[in-house]
């Protein structure tokens, strides 16, 4: 699960660049998607470069209400308030090309674009609640939420996925590139400190080398969070604004390469790439009115789902290049897990209730009978730049770098088992060098 980007922001280009596409993305002319602020219209525009943005964008529950802009006259969410929410929260002067209205073209998000075009895009996947990170993540991993907004807090997570998997003897593992988000849930700390939470660097080598009986049946992969404490030069890659997108694209590529590295295992794999919420970026589709009241003391009522997020299902069981128009949210994943691992038994009453409201399972995307080998991801350099155009993602070429490479290859050749334990990330690096 990545962070804070809307469907139109990441995948709206699919329709714009190919008007024959079945995806509900952005269509020309873009003036059909105006936002209104102070008597002026603002339109979607192609972000000129992949650079760090000026600001994070507003996406707390009150800002999301402004963004969705309920018109009391016709009773519809107009989705015309993203610029207004941005101006209200940042206090910034609004540019004619206003950041929340920016979208990426296919060349700027080549990995996301590649996965969308080769697997199944879900163009009706909404975040469960019209609010921010913590409540939406909590919904994603428990089907319920005790909270309605993000604040400085530790969070309770009743009916959480990990307890459910333990209860049902499902083997699971979390791979985390940095501190996992789950650290915000104290009842998960024993799990976090166990062997079932493993460094992301092991993902590739585990997928290629691990013996069958030990393999987890469910894997959750955590990016390196922009908001989490980090030491050293490790760069966040969760795509949380104001981050440039290239870091996240590279993380998604490495993850896809790892998940598809073992072709035997791939034949039974469903990989789900989704975002916790829209992060304040514009999306044109009004969420359906499916209400939810948070649990706990200060119950808060939401009247609808939140804005659409990019959701892609990668699997030999999806039709290549397909589009799923069924209504999905993050609890669709919980529905799916229950269908696979506890057939005939639902995940929880809350998830059941959402299902009865029309929210489907991820199973709705799995429409393919022919198992195909996974296509190779594009290998181009993902060049994140500074505002002044200097590259910040490509290391300088030179003797020192070549010496490191030579030493690494020899170390791998002479001591493969030890390297797999000590420097597992080098296994993936070596295999990519060989391609």
């Amino acid at each position, binding site marked *: 699960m990545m962070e804070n980007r809307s469907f139109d922001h990441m995948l709206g280009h699919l329709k714009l660049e190919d008007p024959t596409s079945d995806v509900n993305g952005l269509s020309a002319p873009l003036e059909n998607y105006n936002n209104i602020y102070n008597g002026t219209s603002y339109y979607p525009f192609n972000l000129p470069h992949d*650079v760090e943005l000026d600001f994070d964008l507003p996406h707390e529950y009150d800002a999301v209400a402004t963004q969705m802009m309920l018109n009391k006259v016709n009773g519809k969410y107009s989705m015309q308030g993203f610029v207004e929410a941005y101006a209200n929260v940042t206090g910034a002067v609004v540019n004619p090309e206003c950041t929340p209205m920016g979208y990426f073209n296919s060349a700027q998000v080549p990995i996301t674009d590649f996965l969308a075009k080769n697997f199944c895009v879900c163009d009706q996947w909404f975040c469960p609640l019209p609010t921010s990170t913590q409540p939406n993540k909590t919904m994603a991993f428990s089907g319920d939420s005790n909270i309605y907004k993000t604040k400085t807090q530790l969070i309770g997570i009743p009916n959480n996925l990990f307890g459910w998997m333990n209860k049902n003897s499902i083997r699971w593992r979390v791979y985390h590139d940095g501190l996992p988000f789950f650290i915000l849930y104290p009842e998960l700390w024993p799990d976090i400190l166990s062997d079932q939470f493993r460094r992301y660097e092991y993902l590739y080598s585990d997928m290629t080398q691990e013996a069958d009986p030990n393999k987890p049946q469910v894997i959750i992969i955590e990016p390196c969070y922009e908001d989490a404490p980090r030491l050293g030069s490790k760069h966040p890659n969760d795509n949380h604004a104001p981050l440039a997108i290239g870091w996240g694209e590279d993380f998604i590529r490495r993850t896809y390469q790892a998940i598809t590295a073992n072709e035997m295992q791939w034949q039974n794999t469903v990989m789900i790439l989704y975002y916790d919420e829209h992060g304040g970026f514009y999306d044109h589709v009004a969420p359906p009115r499916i209400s939810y009241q948070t649990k706990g003391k200060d119950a808060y009522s939401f009247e609808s789902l939140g804005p659409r997020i990019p959701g892609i299902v990668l699997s030999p069981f999806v039709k290549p290049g397909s589009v799923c128009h069924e209504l999905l949210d993050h609890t669709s994943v919980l529905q799916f897990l229950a269908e696979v691992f506890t057939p005939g038994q639902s995940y929880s009453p809350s998830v059941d209730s959402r299902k009865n409201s029309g929210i489907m399972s991820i199973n709705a995307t799995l429409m393919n009978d022919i198992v195909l080998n996974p296509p190779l991801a594009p290998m181009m350099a993902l060049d994140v730049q500074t505002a002044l155009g200097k590259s910040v993602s490509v290391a300088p070429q030179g003797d020192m770098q070549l010496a490191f490479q030579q030493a690494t290859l020899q170390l791998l050749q002479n001591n493969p088992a030890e390297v797999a334990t000590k420097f597992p990330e080098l296994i993936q690096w070596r295999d990519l060098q060989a391609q």
Partner: protein
Amino acid sequence: MYDQKKISRPGNDSLEVLEFTLSVEKGKKEKHIKRQVSLVQNESTNNVVLATNTINGDTLIAEGIKDTALWSNFEIISVSSASRRTLLVLHANIPASLDSLGATSNAWEGTPYSGTWKIMTPLTEAERKDSTIIPGQLEIKALIRSFKK
């Protein structure tokens, strides 16, 4: 960093923009801020777009402010409907009617462009029966110029 470009604007002339990026680098970190300044011709068109917010009887109303900071140096030459329906408009204490075909009105010539606008239109028979088809915004097109010095 400085850039100059044109942004196409529906219903208007294309908008010429000067773009300034102020960037500060320290160590490996960078912060930057981008400001776009619109270049407006002495006479140009610009639209007032307001979300509909009330119904009074059978009249649909959109009321709001055209940005007073950005547009305070401009005055109106003429105004027309950009909503393909008849509009009754109130601005600067002057009411005037605009026809659905886009004929121009000089009722506000010389008055400030910025400030409060109230745009009203009769609901159609179909809209009276089904509120979900009521438009979410009303729009007028203005020909404006900078205040004479």
